[in-house]
């Protein structure tokens, strides 16, 4: 069993009468402009960015995902008064989000430049490197609440390992972020060197949904509508969970931790029930699995809460949370995006003080070791 499941609360974790300080596992900072990266990006790649820009697996220029639903997929009240896109002004982020919501730690999740979807792997690695440095210089070093992740793409595996080594030497990053949509399902062996290194370094792997890889986001092909695509985040991440578990990644790397970010959690019970049921029937196909899929999920995977499903009856949400496991959930707001969850109002079901403390703080603190 992991150190989190069924662990009794320590004395310093007992509910205090003061307001709960929260850990927000999904905060999106943005570049003001590409020039922010100049000090971290070699001249050769600055020129490439100007002359060629992104090469993605989406057709036609500017058919990239924005705008979707709302300009820059952002809350309409999150545009900084000083100009620039939502999430690009630290002072405004502090005033609008970190201070009033009592965020003790906020984990940065960078989506700029479609960082995981770049098909030119050297260019992708160069901007990942620049953005990893930028996270520290522009955010973490200016506000120690904000924690940075090592962003790498799996498909340039050797480049990824080199970047993980470089960042691990700096020692300030709290997880390794990999693509939710690599060229192959995430459990495939070609990506194992990254998992092996993550386990050795004891860094969780963060997987934030979204992006454009080489495949349609649904098993049925390319959706027509944004609402349909947004729905598909749950299918995509469920497929990646199944791939990781059934290919045997947790079996091979028993100390590895995965955090699935922005995939929600409503889909988890049925996905896990089905995997267990099929495992009983087909276990001779996958003899490398020593235990039921649900056991791997309950020890190796955590899920951030946003977007929270909102059933008509509060008790259904309550039951869902219990099926997933109070210990598996990490609060996330997705600030400043349009589907932001306010920690004060997002859970439309009763939670005890102990449960609140776990979801909003101590689960994340245990996973990330704050």
């Amino acid at each position, binding site marked *: 069993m992991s150190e989190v499941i069924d662990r009794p609360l320590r004395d310093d974790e007992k509910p205090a009468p003061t307001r709960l300080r929260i850990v927000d596992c999904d905060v999106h900072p943005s570049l003001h402009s590409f020039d922010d990266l100049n000090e971290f990006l070699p001249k050769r790649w600055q020129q490439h960015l100007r002359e060629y820009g992104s090469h993605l697996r989406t057709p036609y220029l500017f058919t990239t995902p924005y705008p979707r639903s709302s300009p820059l997929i952002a*809350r*309409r*009240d999150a545009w900084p008064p000083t100009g620039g896109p939502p999430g690009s002004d630290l002072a405004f982020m502090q005033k609008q989000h970190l201070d009033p919501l009592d965020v003790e730690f906020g984990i940065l999740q960078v989506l700029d430049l479609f960082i995981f979807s770049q098909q030119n792997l050297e260019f992708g690695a160069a901007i990942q490197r620049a953005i990893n440095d930028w996270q520290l210089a522009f955010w973490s070093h200016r506000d120690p609440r904000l924690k940075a992740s090592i962003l790498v793409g799996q498909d340039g595996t050797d480049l990824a390992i080199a970047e993980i080594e470089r960042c691990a030497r700096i020692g300030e990053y709290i997880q390794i972020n990999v693509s939710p949509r690599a060229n192959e399902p995430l459990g495939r062996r070609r990506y194992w060197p990254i998992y092996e290194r993550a386990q050795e370094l004891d860094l969780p792997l963060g997987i934030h949904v979204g992006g454009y890889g080489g495949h349609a986001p649904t098993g049925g092909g390319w959706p027509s509508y944004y609402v349909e695509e947004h729905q598909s985040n749950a299918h995509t991440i469920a497929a990646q969970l199944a791939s990781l578990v059934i290919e045997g990644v947790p079996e091979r790397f028993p100390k590895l931790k995965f955090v699935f970010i922005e995939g929600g959690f409503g889909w988890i019970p049925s996905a896990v029930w089905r995997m267990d049921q099929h495992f009983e029937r087909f276990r001779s196909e996958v003899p490398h699995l020593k235990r039921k899929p649900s056991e791997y999920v309950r020890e190796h995977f955590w899920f951030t809460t946003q977007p929270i499903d909102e059933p008509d009856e509060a008790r259904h949400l309550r039951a869902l949370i219990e099926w997933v496991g109070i210990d598996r959930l990490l609060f996330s707001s997705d600030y400043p995006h*349009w589907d932001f969850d306010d920690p004060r109002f997002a859970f439309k079901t009763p939670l005890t003080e102990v449960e609140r403390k776990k979801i909003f703080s101590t689960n994340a603190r245990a996973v990330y070791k704050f």
Partner: protein
Amino acid sequence: MARHIVARTSEIPPGGNKVVDIAGRDIVVFHVNGEFFALLNRCPHEGAPLEKAACVARLTSPEPGIYERSRVGEMLRCPWHGWEFDMRNGQSWFDPKRVKIRSYPVAVERGDELRKGPYVAETFPVHVKDSYVIVEV
């Protein structure tokens, strides 16, 4: 219910709004096509500030591929999750019985009329030549 003078009509341009504090309540007054509407400045879902909402049209479709816009500017789209409300009464478009924004009666009156009545707000000097937006709370 008391009546509160909250603005000159000229102060809130068409499509714009003004946030006022009335008896401790954060209320937002919208100007739509010459009419004014007052609503509690808080989405009933997760509390987003409605002053940042988009004023949109009602969009309907009798069948896929055919779209109709009506009541342009009269629907309020929450700045966070996009929930839509009818500005006239605060009712939500998707669940009008259960989800609504608190709305308040609004009147527009000329200054020379207000001078005679009991409604002059001390903090808002009234000039007889102007028109004023009055919210009843």
